[in-house]
């Protein structure tokens, strides 16, 4: 039993991680799916404090953002601070903020949990490899979903602390309160990374919670159930709610279910059925349905080799109930718990696919919070957590089998078993990691470069201080520059269509010129499709579409081509309106942005009189106040805010939902301070031995 990892084991572990994630260790730009590119100017534009309005939401017209603020302090603020304090470019920043933290947290947390369970570093390292390099997480981080990746990485930490907490309570140790606070803090952090993964983690922990509850109910006196509920449920739960109050309070008070914001179609049965990509054999085998091309919706063939994984994992069930020693019983308890977790995760991850597909639909409609799981693959977390521990448990137990031909020669047995171990590991790697080793994975596993044309365009836009928007046809490219002064509108999203030709048809409408002027759009941009993901026909890049788009836009008389951006084609719209403009009325005024939820209008000479249009998405929570008169926003042209102002020299336009964010912020800060004080005061007593 190796308590500390040997150099050879660590070396092998490092080599495997390096081979799979090798590109992350070179100074090259990687991008994928949800991981876009940020210019230093864009980072400087990010606000330090959380705001309930975001200029890029609503397809570039601005929108209510409170339900999406959860990651503000964990991602946005470090991003802003590191970006501002250092001269790091995006290539380094994406590694410092996303890629390396994922690797470090995932390896460490899974290693620590396994170490507590196995008391053997070699198996713990194996567990860590399985957890960090399975097809699910490779597809997630490959697709640039780094926040999900980071929440996933934290999950074993949360399991470790929570299980320690329950065990400590059952075994009547002293550090339960300390662990309850830590558990609350960790889950709060996980919620800040991704609420769905935190939800799945809590579902997994729920099983152990009920086991703890059953154990406590057997104890005497039964009154101990109440402190158990306090430590295992209420302290962590309230910590999570209060720490995240800065976004939970606005959501509770003003509504804004993040899923409902996406539209009713996302909540229909058809949508859930569509997103149930994984069949049972995929989820059961811990095989991501999109492995390894990672094209959304393209389910690859089932690879029978992956069925070795559940075979190895559930083979651990052969070794339960063999001995009645305390250690063995403890191990049995974990094997049964982890197996149930694996079965439960496989069942949910397959979504509406058979068997019992209707159960998922029922849960989706009935269980609170389940609406977040339109895409059921998030439940792969439970499977990967379960299998990453069960497989090493099987291998460990295989070593204990007394084979008759090795009975007298234990040294031979060990050599045989270690060979078996190596073979199984290589077998696993061969099937699981072959595309990764060969460099066939896409997204963040492929290097890319920032085209010069985009830098030119960015410099051009940054140099212009006037307010205007850019309209991207068909949609905003990942290298696109946007800021609060130059928000970017995605054509497909804005016009609610799904092709560049449909966007052009909308632009050919009689009033399209006036619409773009009112939207403050100054430039219509056809991006250079560097990532080959915008101009697609049958999931393949088609240059004809790109050329046709340019040609057809060129035929629109009121669009004037602007040269000097190479493959990026830019057309100018003459006389776009400002961010604030008069629908009727006179006199001129100037405006400035105090915060993203507060603007100030000052009359240049005389007083402001008339109806002022604020070209952001209409929201009745925008108010204009001058002196003591508060004017609510009225809808203009079906989409903008407008305010009727009478004889004002100064007008303050504010977003009223912001005050709930401030109230929530105060609660969050006070909770954090209280928890840290309590943590310092409470004594930490060997909580780690409880597993």
């Amino acid at each position, binding site marked *: 039993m190796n308590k500390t990892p040997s150099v050879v084991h660590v070396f092998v572990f490092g080599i495997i991680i390096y081979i799979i994630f090798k590109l992350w260790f070179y100074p090259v730009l990687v991008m994928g799916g949800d991981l876009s590119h940020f210019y230093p100017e864009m980072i400087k534009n990010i606000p330090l404090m959380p705001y309930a309005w975001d200029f890029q939401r609503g397809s570039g017209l601005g929108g209510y953002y409170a339900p999406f603020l959860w990651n503000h302090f964990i991602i946005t603020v470090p991003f802003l601070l590191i970006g501002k304090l250092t001269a790091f470019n995006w290539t380094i920043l994406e590694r410092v903020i996303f890629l390396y933290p994922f690797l470090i947290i995932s390896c460490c947390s899974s290693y620590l949990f396994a170490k507590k369970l196995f008391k053997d570093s070699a198996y713990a390292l194996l567990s860590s490899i399985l957890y960090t390099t399975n097809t699910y997480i490779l597809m997630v981080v490959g697709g640039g979903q780094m926040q999900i990746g980071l929440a996933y990485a934290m999950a074993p930490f949360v399991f470790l602390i929570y299980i320690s907490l329950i065990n400590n309570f059952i075994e009547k140790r002293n550090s339960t309160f300390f662990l309850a606070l830590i558990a609350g803090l960790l889950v709060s952090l996980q919620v800040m990374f991704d609420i769905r993964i935190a939800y799945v983690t809590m579902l997994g922990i729920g099983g152990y919670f009920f086991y703890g509850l059953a154990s406590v109910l057997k104890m005497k006196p039964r009154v101990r159930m109440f402190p158990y509920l306090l430590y295992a449920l209420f302290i962590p739960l309230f910590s999570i709610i209060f720490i995240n109050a800065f976004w939970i309070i606005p959501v509770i008070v003003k509504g804004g279910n993040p899923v409902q914001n996406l539209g009713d179609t996302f909540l229909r049965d058809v949508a859930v059925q569509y997103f149930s990509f994984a*069949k*049972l*054999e995929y989820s*059961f085998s811990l095989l991501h349905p999109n492995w390894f091309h990672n094209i959304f919706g393209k389910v690859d063939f*089932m690879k*029978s*080799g992956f*069925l070795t994984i*559940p*075979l190895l994992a*559930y*083979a651990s*069930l*052969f070794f*339960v*109930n*063999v001995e009645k020693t305390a250690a063995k019983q403890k191990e*049995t308890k974990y094997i*049964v718990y982890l*197996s*149930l977790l694996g*079965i439960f995760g*496989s*069942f949910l991850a397959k979504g509406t696919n*058979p*068997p019992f597909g209707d159960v998922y639909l029922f849960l989706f409609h009935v269980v609170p919070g389940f609406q977040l799981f339109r895409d059921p693959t998030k439940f792969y977390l439970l499977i990967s957590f379960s299998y990453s521990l069960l497989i090493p448990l099987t291998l460990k137990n295989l070593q204990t089998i*007394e*084979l*008759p031909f090795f009975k007298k020669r234990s040294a031979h047995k060990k050599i045989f078993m270690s060979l078996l171990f190596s073979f199984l590991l290589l077998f696993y790697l061969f099937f699981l990691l072959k595309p990764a080793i060969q460099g066939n994975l896409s997204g963040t596993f492929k290097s890319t470069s920032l085209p010069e044309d985009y830098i030119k365009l960015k410099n051009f836009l940054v140099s212009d201080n006037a307010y205007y928007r850019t309209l991207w046809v068909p949609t905003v490219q990942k290298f696109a520059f946007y800021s609060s002064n130059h928000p970017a509108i995605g054509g497909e999203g804005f016009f609610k269509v799904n092709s560049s030709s449909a966007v052009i048809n909308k632009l050919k409408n009689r009033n399209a010129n006036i619409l773009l002027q009112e939207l403050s759009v100054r430039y219509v941009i056809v991006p250079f499709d560097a990532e080959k993901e915008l101009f697609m026909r*049958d999931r393949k890049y088609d240059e004809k579409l790109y050329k046709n788009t340019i040609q057809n836009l060129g035929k629109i008389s009121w669009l004037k081509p602007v040269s000097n951006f190479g493959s990026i084609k830019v057309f100018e719209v003459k006389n776009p309106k400002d961010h604030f403009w008069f629908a009727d009325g006179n006199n001129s005024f100037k405006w400035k942005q105090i915060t993203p939820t507060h603007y100030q209008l000052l009359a240049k000479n005389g007083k402001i009189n008339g109806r002022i249009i604020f070209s952001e998405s209409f929201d009745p929570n925008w108010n204009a106040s001058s002196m003591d008169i508060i004017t609510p926003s009225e809808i203009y042209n079906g989409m903008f805010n407008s305010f009727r102002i009478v004889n004002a020299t100064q007008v303050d336009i504010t977003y009223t939902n912001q005050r709930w964010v401030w109230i929530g912020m105060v609660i969050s800060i006070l909770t954090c301070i209280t928890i840290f004080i309590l943590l310092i005061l409470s004594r930490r007593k060997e909580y780690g031995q409880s597993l």
Partner: protein
Amino acid sequence: MSLFFLLIFWIFIIFRYKTGSSITFLLVTLLFFIYPFLLLYSLSVLAEQIVTLIFLIIFIGILQNIWESQHQQRKFIQFNVLFSAVFSTRNLSFLDICSLFIREAMSRISKRVIIRKPSFSSILTILLIGVIMSFSLYTVWVMYENQRKLDDEKKAWNYLIPNIEQVEPKVVYRGTKIRIKGKQFKFQDLARIKLVNQYGEIKNVDYWSDSKIIFTVPLDWKTGKISLWIQNEDNWEGKKHIFHSNIATITLIDTKSNWTSEDYAYFDQIKYLDKEVLKLNGI
């Protein structure tokens, strides 16, 4: 639904013969090993159902395990007992193990069933076995039917895949007429089917029928090995599918270069060429 009858049958076995969870996991392991073979023989529907069965049986096994941990496990026949028996007994064959199981099962059955006045419960048990066996047979039949349907669908796809059976001549000069014989070439005017080589579509086709294509080797082709195949595009449920025939290879030789072994090969093949091909090329 058919799977659940198999599952109920297994639950019945557990209750009737008190088999332990490890025996359940042994069954799971055996089913795991069956899966790749089913895929190998293109029985994908069966393979999917086997995975579902594995999944459900594992779940049953875990529940069994929890039950056993709360009760005396010696009451159940466990795998480790069998495992150690196998390895501690010399010259014990697989048949011996099976016979041990069957003898044990039969003795248990005989104790219950062969009695002077059959009790109500024993009659019920026999009836239940009968029903479950019938359903199991029905399950196998349904699985077979599903597989047959899938095979029929595959046959429907095969109808769209062209097949080249013969290409003559195989060594050619520029200007030689080549005849391709085979199946499901369809008709060229459908536009979605085309004759192609590694450089692109071959457009100068002289004759095209469902079983025969004749074309002339263009003067601008490069010498060397040339791969020929037929490509058929079809729309199925709004998706475009491209079907390729098998690839046939011909060798194009130059008329202006020195006399080589390939020129000998050209004249050698003439002895064996079909009359139609000879006539097409004026020989």
